[in-house]
């Protein structure tokens, strides 16, 4: 590189241009986001009427509703939360507090979890398909979908929970031991309360990912048309992303509007969950 005064002007102009190019990259993302949200609102807002929220899906546009999909998604997420939270937080605690860090087994567990986090969601769908498809009473039920989604988000929550547990100050842990606590008492009294906000941020983000995921559910076999509301984990169900995908596959523009309305509702769920997570995280970072 030549640093002569004569080319200083040129270099300064180049500097300015690239600053705007870098800004342009993020501005493009913002423009895309605004375009996407506006497009959805224009298309779907007028379909958002009370009966849309109260009705079943139907081949007739004016009677079609989103209720079974909403309830199905809620059943799914509830089951996923009940299954994943204890398992993933438990394994995060084991990895951080109990496991021998120098052992080969620990290294293997770490590599295994980070690789699992990179497996595409559709492959989890195949696992669910292979597990449940031969059992008629489970196929296409909330249970099969929820287990599939749980396995999918398990590594994600384990990674984020470990980060939260790592952030607990050593001082507090040693003080607890000094009081004569056993390991589990220490975990209950110190680690869990201290790491809770961090853990819950990770859990919320992972659950909202599960809420919007369609491909594994399509593979495991969510019902395409539901005539009864789901009333337990062994009932058939449809979920919000599945219903949206269904509507988009019809050529009629009215169904596209229904899909847009469905997406608006899905996004309301997701964005409120995400902003809750962000607020929780900011509070947590400030208090530290």
């Amino acid at each position, binding site marked *: *590189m030549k640093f002569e005064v004569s080319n200083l002007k040129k270099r300064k102009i*180049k*500097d300015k241009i*690239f*600053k705007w190019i*870098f*800004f342009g*990259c*993020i501005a493009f*993302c*913002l423009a*895309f*986001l605004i*375009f*996407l949200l506006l*497009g*959805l609102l224009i*298309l779907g807002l007028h379909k958002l009427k009370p009966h849309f929220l109260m009705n079943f899906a139907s081949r007739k546009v004016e009677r079609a509703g989103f209720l079974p999909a909403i309830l199905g998604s809620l059943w799914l997420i509830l089951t996923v939360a009940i299954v994943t939270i204890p*398992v993933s937080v*438990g394994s995060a605690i*084991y990895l951080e507090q*109990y*496991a021998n860090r120098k052992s080969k087994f620990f290294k293997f*567990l770490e590599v*295994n*979890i980070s*690789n*699992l986090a*990179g*497996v*595409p*969601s*559709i*492959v989890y*769908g*195949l*696992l669910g398909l*292979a*597990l449940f498809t031969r059992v008629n009473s489970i196929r296409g039920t909330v249970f099969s979908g929820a287990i599939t989604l749980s*396995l999918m988000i398990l*590594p994600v929550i384990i990674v984020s929970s470990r980060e939260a547990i790592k952030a607990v100050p050593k001082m507090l842990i040693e003080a607890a031991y000094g009081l004569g606590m*056993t390991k*589990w008492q220490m975990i209950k009294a110190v680690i869990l309360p201290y790491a809770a906000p961090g853990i819950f941020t990770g859990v919320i983000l992972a659950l909202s990912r599960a809420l*919007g*995921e*369609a*491909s594994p559910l*399509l*593979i495991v*076999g969510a019902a395409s048309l539901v005539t009864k509301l789901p009333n337990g984990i062994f009932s058939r169900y449809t979920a919000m992303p599945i219903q*949206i*995908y269904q509507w*988009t596959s019809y050529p009629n523009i009215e169904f*596209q509007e229904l899909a847009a309305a469905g*997406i608006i509702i*899905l*996004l309301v769920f*997701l*964005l409120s969950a*995400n902003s809750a997570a962000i607020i929780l995280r900011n509070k947590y970072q400030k208090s530290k």
Partner: protein
Amino acid sequence: MKIEKNKLKLLYLKEKIIKTILLFFTLISVITTIGIIFSLFKESLPFFGKGRIFALFNFGTLWDPRSEHYSIWPLFTGTVMIVLFSCMFAIPLGLGSAIYLSEYANPRIRSILKPILEILAGIPSVVYGFFSFLYVTPLLKSNISWIAKIALIFGIIITIFLAINLIKTGIKTEKSLTKIVYLALGTTFSSIFLYLTVNFIKFFNNTKYLEVETYNVLSASLAVGVMITPLVASLSEDALKSVPKTLREGSLGLGATKFETVWHVVVPAAISGIISSFILAISRAIGETMVVAMAAGSKPVLNLNPLGQIQTMTGYMVSKSFGEVPVGSLEYQTVFVIGLILFFMTLGLNILAKKIVDVLREVY
């Protein structure tokens, strides 16, 4: 005192039980891995008999198990095209955003801009698919001729730029092997440049005959690209942030402009993290399903035109499962065969991404 002792014993027992339970929870992830590999192999193994394993990798232009066309190439090229074009959007967008956020933005602007990427990352892929099918494709259809013209001019500029720079560095380097690689790449780009310039008028006029199909690779790739941009941006930003301040200050102190500092000092110092973010983005784009299924079409025929429709590996899997494929049938097996290949492709890329960080990272 005896009661106390019993209490302690009970306490220790409880500790042991809890430890075992937690260990069991941890083992669930191991069981998941074994389950994935076992089920993929078990369900796809019957397919490989009768010489079909050779048919799978034979070159062919059609994938259709029903009519016994078992060549995976159409699906594979579909996936590769989606990856190529989506990374063409995601890599510059993600890296540019990361550089802006970590080097240029002050904390206030950062706190406004950063959530944009977080929201983009939180939007489900069904939404991206819907949007690209309903909005991006019509936009592309009506504007394709001038988009193609701009792309042509842009392509000419980029190829000549790359050619000149590569040949320049090629001449400067001393190792003979790298010299050959640089010079070979330089000549390739310059010949592309020559080809484009010689035929410029012909190509320029032909852009008005371009036609965009209702389902096409390009609009799906744009959506996939924007979708994986946050991944590239956040990982690259982490890498850029971990470069120590002293390096930047040294460079600025020597009189380099901000851009020169960023481009010649900070980015090279963070290159391991940046490249691994690119590879993870590729792996994500390979596994992306819903956008591709909704906007890129479902035609498993070999096609290299980005304005035409294709089917990717993931797209094929989703298209089959919806049609209630009978368990154990040949089509059921093919879904698992594709899944097996997909699994090992992404696994390989993820391991590569980690290796690159280990090998290239410089600790400060």
